[in-house]
């Protein structure tokens, strides 16, 4: 299956890209998406994840066509 990946803010700079598309086996998790999209980079401790614009844990399942986003702690307001 294929999923769409987005990186924001400092994580986008670390990854040198804002978007990616990755292929992974059915039944994969957000953690698997990170491994497939991060070119082997170690995951920073404070990275947050969302699937289809909802916060999730890295153990959450992903499905074909999902949008998975990774970003640092939020600093709005």
């Amino acid at each position, binding site marked *: 299956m294929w999923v769409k990946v987005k990186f924001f803010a400092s994580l986008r700079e670390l990854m040198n890209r804002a978007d990616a598309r990755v292929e992974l086996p059915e039944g994969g998790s957000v953690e698997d998406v990170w491994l497939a999209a991060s070119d082997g980079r170690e995951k920073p401790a404070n990275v947050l994840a969302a699937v289809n614009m909802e916060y999730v844990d890295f153990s959450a399942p992903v499905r074909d066509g999902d949008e998975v*986003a990774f970003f*640092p702690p939020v*600093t709005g307001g």
Partner: protein
Amino acid sequence: MPVEVLESPFNPWQRLQDYETRPEAPHGRIGATAVFVGTMRDFNLDDGVAAMTLEHYPGMTEGYLERISAEADARWGLLDSLILHRVGRLAPQDPIVLVAVWSSHRREAFEACRWLMEELKSKAPFWKRETLTDGSARWVEENTRGY
């Protein structure tokens, strides 16, 4: 209960006046209005800050703000609320955020306004990048706790 992400500067007081005087505003029943306006400081962590760029996650940010707006409405029985938040490049003292809450009594207005701000600060996907007065730039790593 509108929420809006704005790409250009706004005047929160003008927006409040426009919002309160629109014909469909809940006139008559309002006994309390609580307003929070956040503005950009010219310092952070003992450094001078010359400018700031705010980015967001289009779609998720608006969805999150709409959800906490609806949750505050249900929890405190609000008459109305308004949330505006800037993105893009800001200069010191530019307004960043407006949270306004209307209710019949002050307790609900104070509590809901505070809760909305803390939820927004801790979970709404916005990120700040500062340009310091010495020309260097850095991402703000985390928000200070409000409580």
